[in-house]
């Protein structure tokens, strides 16, 4: 069974859902900070049984103005193209994830229904960004979504940074070589050579590494 629930329907229910709980909507309502806003319009796949807890989770996510897509039972492959995935923890969840650990496609929150012993190894293997324990509360849903999302993004930024560092280490060598070539051929100082490279890069709107490689390569061809 699949359905995509429009978030506006959900928001009408704010009153009924939040009222009985002390940690309910009252506090969240007051803080529509930028942090809360960053969760607006997130596409969230929710893969849970639609029991009371499941219903509550969907409602809380809608209240946070997420675009909720519900699915149950767990499909053989967890859907891609969502910002976050909430999925009931099952023994074969790692195999159902469409990505390899270390290259996740979405922030993953696993749901612990609390009806069997907690399997830490399984949690590790899911490489999840957060865990939500039943019964859920407004606070716990908001906190786990926010943290999972920020962990996911942080991981992605770090990976990007490492890729860039690797690339920079390589291009630094080209820049050094291009610099010494320029110094020799044009009979200029190191600083002038570097400025030349930078100017060329800016004019051509390419990286300084690309200019350096081009110079080194073409020099190889000329000689």
């Amino acid at each position, binding site marked *: 069974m699949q359905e995509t629930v429009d978030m506006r329907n959900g928001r009408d229910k704010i009153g009924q859902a939040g009222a009985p709980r002390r940690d309910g909507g009252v506090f969240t309502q007051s803080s529509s900070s930028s942090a809360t806003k960053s969760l607006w319009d997130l596409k969230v796949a929710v893969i849970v049984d639609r029991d009371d807890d499941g219903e509550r989770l969907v409602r809380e996510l809608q209240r946070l103005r997420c675009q909720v897509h519900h699915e149950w039972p767990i499909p053989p492959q967890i859907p891609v193209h969502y910002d976050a995935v909430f999925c009931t923890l099952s023994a074969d969840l*790692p*195999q159902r994830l469409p990505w*390899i*650990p*270390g*290259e996740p496609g979405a922030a993953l929150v696993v749901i612990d229904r609390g009806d069997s012993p907690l399997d830490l*190894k399984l949690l*590790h*293997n899911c*490489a999840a960004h957060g865990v939500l324990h039943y019964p859920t509360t407004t606070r716990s849903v908001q906190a786990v979504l926010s943290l999972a999302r920020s962990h996911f993004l942080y991981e992605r930024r770090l990976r990007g940074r490492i890729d860039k560092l*690797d690339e920079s*280490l*390589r291009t630094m*060598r080209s820049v050094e*070589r291009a610099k010494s070539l320029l110094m020799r051929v044009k009979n200029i100082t190191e600083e002038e050579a570097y400025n030349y490279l930078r100017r060329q890069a800016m004019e051509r709107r390419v990286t300084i590494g690309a200019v350096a490689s081009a110079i*080194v390569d073409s020099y*190889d061809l000329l*000689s």
Partner: protein
Amino acid sequence: MTRSSNTSEPWRVGVLFSRSGFMAVIEETQFRGTLTAIEEINAAGGVNGRPIEPICYDPGSEASAFGRYAKKLMVEDGVSTIFGCYTSSSRKAVLPVVERLNGLLWYPTLYEGFEFSPNVIYTGATPNQNSVELCRVLMQTYGTRFYFIGSDYIYPRESNRIMRELIRNSGGSVVGESYVNMGAKRAEFLPVMREVKRAQPDVIFSTVVGDGTVYLYQAYAELGLNPKMMPIASLTTTEAEIRAMGHDVGEGHITAAPYFQGIGNERNSTFVRHYQKRYGEDEPTNMCLEASYFQVNVFAKTLEQTGSMDTEILRSSVMGSEFEAPQGDVVINPIWGHADLWTRIGRANRQGQFDLVYESPSCVRSDPYLLGYGRSLRQRSLELT
């Protein structure tokens, strides 16, 4: 995992080498090297009384399959140590998995360097252990004009970048550069070879890997070119590829490697004898096989001390450790987790073996980011200190 020593439960490890597809020619030998070591260790009573149990998958020369199988090994089979990978693309596919789940990949293949992962032990050569010396020998013996031929993926492109730098800084030049697709067919190599013939270089530097190696050297032979005048030099053409192309085809060509079957020492003779007893008298050993073999032994020796497969414990214990490998004494460099290996340059003979042209006086410290070596080859002695 750490627990008591009075269990006979096996130590489970993962093994990922292609036994099918265009990389099988070399990865099959790495697979055998791994199993030979495991069998030897188990025959001698295992590690602390427990046997090593390999769980093996065949990724079929497809890089993404390496990533999937690494995940399967760690998630479904509960393995934390994996021996495997030949190509850089396959290593890069396994990397995110072992990094996220905190596994340990033992990588027994030379590669282009410029990488450091706390979740990998690198036991193959990096450019300062093969390219630097190879470049010097080639320029002294054959001349200064090079032609590059490579398979089209990370390793050849990066190796050529480094080789180009070495050549240029020593006053040589690169007169041409061609790439063929991974898994290219035989017919694709003749036009490339004709192009080389026209360019008349002094040396052909090849970074072609897998079945392509065989086609390349055969195309060379077909055009009647003379290895005495214009040899193919390589970092990857081992005894395995020479055997596959034919001893007459390989004769006279040059390879730089930490290990050749023909190096004379007692440890190596025992290793070769043992291997051939298991797989056949005419089965040669090679550098990738040797690295696969010794890294399992380094692992076992470390495990004996730690009694734990925990990645953190294994890794911190293996860093800086020394081992007597068939190639000679090697060290897992404590800074980089890359092995300090021997530098050797060999010329293939009619028997499909390599005659030594150069040998370093001891193992050469690994320098994956090429920080320590000088800009020109004259300063090469620095890295040996």
